[in-house]
């Protein structure tokens, strides 16, 4: 097993918006939508990123927040990042015939390759403002796209979860819902899916150390490892994960309210 970072060159950098860049890497992997790689920025840090492109050269999409991602945003094509993986279970697109995908902010990254693998799913893309919307062009080609922004600068004003509720209220029958985004949003999607008895697959995020090796316990949510048992969880697992939407662990391992964790992750 090769589970140490191997240096690969950045092939191309795409500016998604003022705060988000996609890095196409000189690497191909046999991976599934929803799986992640550990990315090493030599001398700075190592962090998990889900794959935002899988066929051909792989890509990751990176929002600038904190030291490591700031450094990545300064990098140019030709420079080297270390990668290991892919890790995690990924989404199970298997039997879905009429799927709905709910994405919030940078959470859209792992959901784009999923949308491309499904047959014309409904895709609800939520962001804070028009400038924060991601992958609009790619998504228009493969899905029935709904857009929401918090301030109404594009699409509908409000939350992506409101669109999900409305579609269900109008009698749409989804046989699968997939989501990734801020955890309070995912918690809400979970509640909606539970009350409509729809199978959900949600992709969770936690601070990681061994990232995918499943041995350190840092990423655990009620004893369940996000890096090795997830990062994608279904309804039954989510029901057991009482910390989902409520708390997460800092680098010391201390469990804190989700809000405090999110603030720390911005640094």
């Amino acid at each position, binding site marked *: *097993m090769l589970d140490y970072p191997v*240096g690969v060159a950045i092939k191309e950098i795409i500016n998604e918006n003022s705060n988000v860049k996609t890095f196409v890497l000189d690497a191909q992997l046999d991976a599934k939508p929803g799986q992640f790689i550990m990315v090493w920025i030599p001398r700075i840090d190592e962090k998990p990123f889900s794959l935002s492109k899988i066929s051909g050269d792989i890509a990751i999409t990176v929002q600038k927040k904190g030291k490591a991602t700031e450094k990545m945003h300064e990098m140019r094509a030709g420079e080297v990042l270390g990668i290991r993986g892919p890790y995690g279970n990924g989404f199970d697109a298997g039997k879905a015939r009429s799927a709905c995908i709910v994405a919030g902010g940078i959470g859209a990254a792992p959901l784009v390759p999923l949308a491309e693998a499904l047959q014309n799913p409904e895709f609800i893309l939520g962001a804070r403002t028009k400038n924060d919307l991601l992958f609009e062009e790619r998504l228009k080609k493969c899905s029935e796209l709904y857009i929401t922004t918090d301030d109404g600068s594009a699409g509908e004003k409000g939350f992506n979860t409101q669109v999900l509720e409305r579609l269900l209220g109008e009698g749409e029958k989804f046989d699968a819902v997939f989501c990734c985004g801020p955890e309070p949003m995912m918690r809400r999607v979970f509640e909606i899916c539970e009350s409509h008895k729809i199978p959900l697959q949600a992709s969770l995020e936690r601070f990681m150390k061994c990232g995918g090796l*499943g041995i350190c316990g840092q990423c655990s949510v009620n004893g369940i490892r996000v890096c090795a048992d997830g990062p994608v969880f279904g309804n039954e697992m989510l029901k057991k994960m009482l910390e989902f939407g409520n708390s997460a662990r800092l680098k010391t391992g201390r469990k804190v309210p989700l809000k405090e964790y999110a603030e720390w992750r911005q640094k």
Partner: protein
Amino acid sequence: MLEVDLCNLRLKNPTILASGILGVSRELLQRVSDSGAGAATIKSITLNPREGHHNPTIIGFEAGIMNAVGYSNAGIEEAKKEFADLSGIKIPIIASIVAEKPEEFALLAGEIDSLHQFSAIELPLSCPHTPGFGLLAGQGTPEATSAITNAVREKTRLPIFVKLSPNVPGIGELAKSAEKAGASAITAVNTLGPGMLIDINSRKPVLDFKCGGISGPALRPVAVRCVYDVYESVKIPIIGVGGILTGRDAIEMILAGATAIGIGSGIYYRGMNIFAQVCREMEMWMKKNKVKSLEEIRGQAHA
């Protein structure tokens, strides 16, 4: 068939979760117990919270795992909350404490003892990659080993497991000084090295701390030799740790003299089910070889 008595702790089988692997929460200990382990050790805790080294901290390579986690943990106060009630877990849970000075070890031992949740206390005096602790603080000498073990012995009647490093000139002598100072068992061993891996494309060491301790298969023959040496030097039981992945590896450790065996990196290779798998493989070997208890074969490699 697999039951063992370790310092009066009755283990249903000899497999023990090694410290630093998964043992950061009550719920993970519960899961390890559900997976069939005979006992479990928590990740080492310190007096104050620690963030540890920067990532990359843990990587896998061709022959094992290399880590420089650097004792990240939430500190004793949080640990007291996290492990306040372990009564639902049906296997013995071993505390692991690390500190910079004997008095600090004693203080932590007192706190652990008064929680009444743990069955034993392990003292790793052997980490090769954390400034202030273990080998980098000179805790791997006979003098320091006695001083720390003595200080802890005064604070608790719980069994004390002293965890030794393979990176010392005479592990037998070290084990003797621990035994004399009141250790109840020896855990052998902690990680090997430290080692280093360099990425040839970025031309930089991969671990942020540059070097780290080696565990998994690369460590196993070294660990077996250490257990063999310790068995020749002391009367107290030994917990053999290092690269155990299969029932065969566990039997090998017992032949070298171990009473129980620790499993850490093995979880990376075989998942959490490794405890049940190792037990099944040991039983199969025992049946085939008409061995009725582990007592029968303990230390047989010395005959």
